């Protein structure tokens, strides 16, 4: 436990030191503020809470941005440290391998968490100063921030798995880009193509639900865009939300599983790995 905390703390300190945290926070705050300010402009007259709009636009942004950042900070974690010799050194200390993986994971998740809370919080604060936010929308906003961190955690875990599997950190980087392209872009396009071609013959709603859970980015999207009535209305997902058999709990559980399973696999692969 002690070792996990020490390693996690070092990871956070390194993140602050090499300006990863600052860079990610600024990027997220800049994009969030841009979306907030642009997003609320055309809605002044329709009476929808700007915060609900912000939740829609920010969660769409998150689906692309957060997995990319998560993979960028995680792909080097194991393969890179092995190459630099620091992993061998770390393991010569009284530290178990699962403690190294867990500690690093908690540190990286904390980095992403800090950046998300501050970056998106800045957008929320800007709206709060503007006034006119209905109280219920804050719940949706808070849930969006929380699930964004969870989505990030899932992709950090996937990045670790890539990093534990290959010898060369550059290969791990390539795999990370592949993972991002697949889950953030290709998966949905392919799914859409299949749905159109299939016309509901084999892809029943139950199959579709399973397919949506099979991508953490889709689980995240559904959780945020259908989870709150105001938001789903504005996201154009209200119809879908009524048909969905998947509850919030199932979607959140999918995200947790998408974190726990790759992380456990990464720890397992790393435990057997020879340095």
């Amino acid at each position, binding site marked *: 436990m002690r070792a996990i905390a020490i390693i996690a703390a*070092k990871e956070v300190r390194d993140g602050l030191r090499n300006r990863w945290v600052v860079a990610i926070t600024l990027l997220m705050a800049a994009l969030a503020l841009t979306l907030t300010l642009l997003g609320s402009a055309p809605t002044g007259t329709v009476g929808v809470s700007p915060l609900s709009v912000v939740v829609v636009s920010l969660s769409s942004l998150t689906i692309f941005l957060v997995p990319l950042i998560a993979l960028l900070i995680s792909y080097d974690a194991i393969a890179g440290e092995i190459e*630099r*010799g*620091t992993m*061998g*050194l770390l*393991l010569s*200390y009284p530290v178990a391998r699962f403690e190294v993986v867990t500690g690093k994971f908690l540190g990286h998740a904390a980095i992403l968490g800090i950046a998300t809370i501050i970056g998106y919080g800045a957008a929320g604060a800007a709206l709060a100063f503007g006034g006119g936010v209905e109280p219920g929308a804050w719940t949706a906003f808070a849930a969006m921030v929380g699930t964004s961190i969870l989505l990030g955690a899932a992709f950090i875990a996937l990045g670790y798995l890539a990093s534990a599997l290959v010898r060369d950190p550059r290969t791990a980087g390539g795999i990370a880009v592949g993972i991002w392209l697949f889950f953030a872009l290709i998966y949905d396009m392919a799914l859409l193509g299949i749905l159109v071609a299939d016309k509901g013959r084999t892809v029943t709603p139950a199959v579709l639900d399973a397919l949506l859970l099979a991508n953490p980015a889709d689980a995240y999207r559904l959780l945020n865009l259908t989870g709150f009535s105001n938001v789903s209305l504005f996201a154009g997902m209200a119809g879908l939300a009524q048909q969905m058999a998947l509850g919030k709990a199932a979607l959140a559980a999918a995200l947790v599983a998408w974190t726990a399973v790759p992380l456990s696999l990464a720890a397992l692969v790393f435990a057997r790995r*020879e*340095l």
Partner: protein
Amino acid sequence: MSGATATLSGVTKRYGAQCAVDGVDLVLQPGERVALVGHNGAGKSTLIKLMLGLVRPNAGRIVVLGADPAHGAAAKAEIGYLPENLVLQPSATGAELMAFYASLKRQPVAHNRAILERVGMGEAAKRRVHTYSKGMRQRIGLAQALIGTPRLLLLDEPTTGLDPALRQHFYEIVDELAHRGTTVLISSHALAELENWSDRVVVMSRGRKAADGTITDLRELAERPVRIRITLPEGNISLLPESLGTALEWERIGERVIELRCPAADKAEVVRRLATSPVAFRDIEILVPTLDEIYAHFLQREAAE
């Protein structure tokens, strides 16, 4: 055997078809200063990694500080390790890295100051690693290995690329630990560098232990001749070797210089006879085989087998 710091018996490690370590037996005793030498790829680093549990053997048994290094982390609190080609994190300061490593070993961070002073990094530890020279990075690398006064110190090519003064400093520091009972194992591909430092030399060649013993043992085992150079005054230079009686191998290597060759074991006898020889000589120089010669001999013998 219970007092041994590390015991390896019949340890073999294969990477695919390549045998990195091949049936090595090795026992390291407390306070021993061991030089582990061999070419690049001879299995030195793999042997060290086996002792640390970073790689697992295909065959054989390893016990380090009473435990199997691949299982259980407890014994590692008493091991110091400096990996080959360590790249320290550039954005951290030396002191920060030391604090991190000390807390992992459950050692008081306050003791780091003394260790950093000892390796000559008392002041520089406040600066970031990217401002350090190669020598300074190696000093920090050594400093972290010294945390908690380990019972086993494994240094993998620690002095490669360091200037001779710093190298000497390295050996002085690890000697202090050895005097207090720490087993120190230093690997190197240059044996000559470790000649005056080690109590024992282990020569590795293509995964196998080619030789193991004190420098004197190795000299005798290698059966390299001792060369005695004698500068003579005017006169017939063949007189001297002839005066020594037994048929000694000799050759003329200069105007007035001859070189005698004799087995290392006969050296004392030959010198005694020289001293009592009626032929006067002006100068004498005894050339014992250098470590590199001995080392080359063992490697050739291993290759021939």
